[in-house]
């Protein structure tokens, strides 16, 4: 380390190599699942390097380096805990409004489609929402494929005309 402080690269490189092996052992035993021990080794090496001015010549090098390693471990654990807590707090915010939106959209859709003929409504729901192909929908209702396409097209067009006076309906119109 003294060589490193004096600016001698080669002994310093050997020191960091030996230290990385020691750190791997240190974090290998202590690193909890979910944290990457090798990341901690690298972070500690960087800290040892950038903060090497805080090493005192009279001090045992390992005590100094392990104090940094311990700090880095505690810091990583604290951040990991923060990360674990954050999604748990966000979960409600994420899913409740999303579900509510979907429910509202479904209710709106029912109301909008109520004006359409029964069979057109069923065809639109099956092909656009439930994900049937035109052919499957045609078989189900005993129609030809082109008749199904025409019915859906007309249904959507009439919806578009009624509910989207400006520009609207484009996202449902193209097949």
């Amino acid at each position, binding site marked *: 380390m003294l060589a490193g402080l*004096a600016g001698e690269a080669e002994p310093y490189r050997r020191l960091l*190599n030996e230290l990385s092996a020691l750190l791997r052992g240190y974090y290998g035993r202590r690193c909890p699942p979910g944290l990457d021990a090798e990341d901690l080794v690298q972070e500690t*090496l960087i*800290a040892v390097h950038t903060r*090497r*001015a805080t090493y005192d010549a009279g*001090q045992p090098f390992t005590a100094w380096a392990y*104090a940094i390693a*311990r700090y880095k471990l505690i810091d990583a654990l604290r951040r990991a805990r923060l990360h674990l807590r954050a999604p748990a707090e966000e979960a409600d915010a994420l899913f409740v409004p999303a579900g509510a939106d979907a429910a509202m959209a479904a209710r709106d859709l029912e109301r909008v489609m109520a004006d359409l003929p029964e069979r057109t409504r069923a065809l639109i729901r099956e092909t656009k929402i439930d994900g049937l192909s035109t052919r499957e929908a045609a078989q189900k209702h005993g129609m030809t494929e082109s008749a199904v396409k025409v019915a859906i097209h007309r249904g959507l067009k009439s919806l578009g005309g009624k509910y989207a006076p400006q520009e609207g309906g484009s996202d449902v119109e193209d097949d």
Partner: protein
Amino acid sequence: MSKTTDELIAGLTADVPRVAPGAVSRRVALGLGLGGLGSAAVMLAWLGPRPDLAQAVMTPMFWMKFGYAALTGLILAGVLVRLAKPAARIGGLTLAAAAPFVLVATMAAMRLAQAPPETQQAMLMGHSSMICPWRIVAIGLPLLAGAVWAVRGLAPTRLGLAGLAAGGCAGALGAMIYSVACDETSAPFLAIWYTLGMALVAALGAAAGSRLLRWR
């Protein structure tokens, strides 16, 4: 994985500039120096030096106030330098930091014991006891900011303790600066209210330390 660590080491050791000895002390001195300038500016703009400063510097009491705060601040700066390094021992310095207070408190107790009872109240409370600690806190804040800046750029590993030392040091040096504006003249006042002001800044530093001194 181990490949990238080897690369990292190669990168870190490609160019290793020499580190001059004493870099830690110099950084702490710089932080406290800049903070001290800020604190002195606050004192001058807000309170100004006491009007009778020219006569006051001839009295021992002025130097007792100034010296008590300065000595405590310097010793705590030494503690702070140690706490800015991983695994460093503070050792006897904590005891040394309490020595000026013990001295001042002893002197205060003696003066108080010798004084006629009707003047004791005045000796204890002075005329500014209710504002003195708060002024020390306000004047100490720029110093605390300077100390925090210096230490978080180093490698403290006991953050609460380092925060306590940073606050104590800032409070004591802030009290030193305040003593130029303050015209109280009794040792008991110094022992109680100056110490309380320093302790408040120290408590602030300890409370904020674990958050403010965190480094990556």
